């Protein structure tokens, strides 16, 4: 029987769509199957409450690769990224700290806490910028394989080694420290003010089940600076129309190149015969065949859920079962009748045009983590907030606002068991609003509608196994040549003609699009379809 498609892509998340667009652009006949009624997976926009558009899950453009924007002509297909202009940190005692792209202003703000830190801040930024330049190719290329003896791989490794040495002793050491230290330890070598260290350290823990003092959390700090060197392409920002607008632009591009996309088409099974992927079976029983199948779904779901254990080598099954997901975060989206003033800095100024960190000190963050470690959501959580409607007034009716609140920690594995999350959902939402009321007392009275997403909801609704927003912990042993598992980091899988293209593959989660792009590259290079 001849195949209906060159490639079927399971999951219409942003990575699946990127992969589809690249394959279609190369002339392949591609079908994307999305279970939900909207595209984008966790990168979607929905009007949950009339007139208010929520970026339901993912809320910022994090390192969307500039090359993808260019290759897929995303601007032409409606992508418009608005830069996030500031980071605002309010403290319960009424003080606050605003960091912007304006060095003089930022310096003044930090100097109110510590003159020394104000001096060090730009130096730190410079050092991190240099490291970001070193590390950037790592997210733009497939993972190096240190165990390989292939001349090509060895050459890549030597090149990487040479570039590392070219960094010089000081930066080389800094890079090593960045990969191994905790965010707080790393920042404490530079800064003395806990009020500054805490909100900076937070970027290291987003989406992980670790604390800011856990070793290995410093690395993600670099992502912020990688965004900066992408420069004018604004890879760190907010998409007009919400995060879903990114997915829609990619989808339009894919369609333009000839890809076929179906929504409400959940895949029930990936058909495997003789160790080879043949196609998929949809939830309605429809069978579709293709030369290759590519899954944008999370690896454990892909293999243990859609392929089935009996088709897989037992060693691989063991690896998958060990694969750490452990979602740790939730999301609260609010529709607001009016703008809620932060008592430390009322009004809609520059400080509302970026992200807002509720991370008053490092002990606070560790206590939030401690709650989660022992199976409960944080009574006083860390929060990262944006007001999309401030940047893009079309997100809400005139004068009204949407507020996107990323909340950590909300561990998937609560002590009652994850299926008990629905009973705790509102209590969790209340903890978030109560904590926020310490900073903006009028918030409670301005809420028109509240959407609370627990990790359980993220799993049930968006297929994020265990509610992990990155399709697997971004911990050292699950990165690079070990992502998702050792030996299978190059998008191939033990099932012949089944490939991975989601965040569970290198270089991991976030709205980067890199796994989708790199998977497409590998597939095309090998002539798999």
């Amino acid at each position, binding site marked *: 029987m001849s195949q209906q498609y060159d490639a079927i892509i399971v999951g219409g998340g942003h990575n699946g769509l990127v992969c589809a667009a690249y394959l279609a652009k190369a002339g392949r006949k591609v079908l994307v199957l999305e279970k939900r009624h909207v595209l984008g997976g966790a990168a979607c926009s929905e009007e949950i409450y009339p007139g208010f558009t929520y970026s339901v899950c993912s809320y910022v453009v994090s390192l969307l690769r500039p090359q993808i924007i260019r290759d897929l002509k995303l601007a032409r297909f409606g992508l418009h990224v608005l830069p996030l202009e500031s980071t605002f940190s309010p403290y319960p005692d009424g003080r606050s700290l605003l960091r912007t792209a304006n060095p003089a202003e930022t310096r003044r703000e930090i100097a109110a806490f510590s003159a020394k830190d104000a001096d060090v801040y730009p130096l730190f930024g410079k050092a991190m910028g240099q490291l970001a330049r070193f590390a950037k190719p790592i997210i733009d290329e497939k993972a190096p394989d*240190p*165990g390989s003896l292939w001349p090509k791989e060895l050459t890549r490794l030597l090149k990487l080694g040479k570039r590392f*040495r070219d960094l*010089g*002793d*000081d930066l*080389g*050491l800094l890079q*090593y*420290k960045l990969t*191994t*230290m905790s965010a707080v*330890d790393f920042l404490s*070598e530079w800064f003395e003010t806990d009020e500054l260290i805490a909100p900076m350290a937070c970027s290291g823990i987003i989406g992980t089940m*670790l604390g800011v*003092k*856990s*070793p*290995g959390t410093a690395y993600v700090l670099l992502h912020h600076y990688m965004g900066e060197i992408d420069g004018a392409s604004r890879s760190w920002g907010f998409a007009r129309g919400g995060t879903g607008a990114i997915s829609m632009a990619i989808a339009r591009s894919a369609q333009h190149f000839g890809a076929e996309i179906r929504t409400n088409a959940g895949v029930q099974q990936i058909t495997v015969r003789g160790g080879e992927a043949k196609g998929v079976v949809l939830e309605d029983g429809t069978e579709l065949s293709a030369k290759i199948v590519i899954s944008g779904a999370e690896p454990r779901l892909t293999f243990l859920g859609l392929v089935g254990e009996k088709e897989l080598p037992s060693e691989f099954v063991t690896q998958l079962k*060990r694969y*750490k997901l452990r979602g740790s975060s939730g999301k609260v989206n609010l529709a607001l009748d009016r703008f809620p003033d932060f008592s430390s800095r009322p009004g809609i100024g520059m400080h509302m045009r970026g992200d807002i960190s509720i991370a008053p000190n490092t*002990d606070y963050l*560790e*206590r939030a983590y*401690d709650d989660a*470690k*022992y199976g409960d959501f944080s009574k006083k959580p860390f929060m990262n907030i944006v007001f999309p409607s401030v940047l893009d007034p079309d997100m809400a009716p005139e004068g009204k606002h949407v507020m996107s609140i990323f909340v950590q920690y909300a561990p998937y594995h609560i002590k009652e068991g994850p299926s008990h999350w629905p009973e705790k959902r509102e209590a969790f939402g209340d903890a978030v609003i109560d904590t926020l009321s310490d900073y903006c007392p009028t918030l409670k009275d301005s809420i028109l509608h509240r959407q609370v997403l627990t990790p359980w909801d993220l799993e049930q609704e968006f297929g994020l196994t265990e509610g992990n927003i990155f399709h697997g912990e971004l*911990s*050292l*042993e699950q990165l690079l*040549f*070990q992502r998702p598992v*050792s*030996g299978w980091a190059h998008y191939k899988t033990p099932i012949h003609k089944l490939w991975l293209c989601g965040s569970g593959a290198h270089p991991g989660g976030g709205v980067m699009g890199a796994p989708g792009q790199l998977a497409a590259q590998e597939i095309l290079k090998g002539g798999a379809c």
Partner: protein
Amino acid sequence: MGKALVIGGGPNGLAAAITLAAKGRSVTLLEGKCTLGGRCAVLDDTATVQPWAVEALGLDLEWVDAAPLVHATSTGNHTIDHDEPAMAAWLCEVATFTPLIRELSASAPPNIRLGAAWTQLLGSALPMAKLGRAKGFELARIGPLCAEDWLDESGIDRSTQAALIAPALLGTWMGPRSPTSALAVLFHHALSGQEIEGGMEGLLNALVRRANGAGVDIRTEARVVRIIVEEGRAVGVTLDDGAELRADVVLSTIGLKNTMFSLVGHRALPFGLDMAVENIRSRGVVAQWRATAASPLFGGAERVVVVDDTTALERAFDDAKHRRLPSRPAMLIRQRGETLNALVFGAAHDLDGGWSDEARISLQKTILDTLGERADASLISNAELITPVDLESTYGLEGGHLFHGEFALDQFLSFRPHPMLSGYKSGIDGLWLGGAGMHPAGGFTLGQGILAAGQV
């Protein structure tokens, strides 16, 4: 050959002095207190002392099998069974890495500084390459894990896990759920083997005997107050009585900050070195507790680990992390005759409010209560608590940390304690470093002093 001064009469000081004397130098060992031994009075576990070190020093001592480990929990006490299938399988896994880890611990770490030859770097990768691809990848996977996750894989129950993990955490600033704690556990168990007859006292006696035999001039109550640096070179020391001793080589085995800041002084340090030393992390999380028991506790067991499970262990670390008194400390007890010597995990050096009398009394009570759940605490008398702050003031343990510096990936191998101080060099000609803060980390190995002296 010339004259050498060794600062610090602890185990590494003695080991360094013996090694230097064996190389034909005229060695003077300077100890500030009236007794030798330093940390030996705190740590009473010789299982991680490396046989190669004992051999290199030519120590006259006997090895004995480690006494059985009794695990005391609030629901009962029992002896840890190494033949239980899950445990045996896990120990087997550890054993596959043992040769590599012991090899790494028996030699100076490779120089990773700029200018190091490629051949040297590749040479240092050789032991790793010997592991082979599969085991190498496995090590890369295990290393960053938290200890609890790793041991969960083996099927060992979390109560027994805690007994295996607790000893490895003493040298870290981690709990069983901290990433990379698996590496600490792996190193600890890979380095552990037989113990020395007579324990730490037996080892110390052998070291002193050997040092005397080798002609080391041992001076106690000879506190060094300054390392004399002339034209960028260490040429001797000044003692607290004002005496100046000159030598070709000075080797310090005391704390790194003390050596570099107090004895050398900021002004004599090369550019950047002061920041490097400042940033070395040594946050103590362990207190010592000593007492006498009217009759033996725990059925007379010599080694006892007091901890319920990994959650309790993690909570003990949380207490230290948040600088509060531990409510359920984990304890490693050594019972010799009627004396009890316990290391109490979960006691922060930087306790909020400081180690006041109230805090001390409160922790003493907590310790007795915890023991009381597992043994007849009414037999205990003469209890004495030595807090991390006391450990610092008595034994010069910076931050109260038992190993002069935390076991952490960024303070490990060539990075221990910091690349600028790697290879036992201090950055000042003629001054070498050979204390516990240097490579190898992962247990009381006796390796640092020997390897440092070997580099001189």
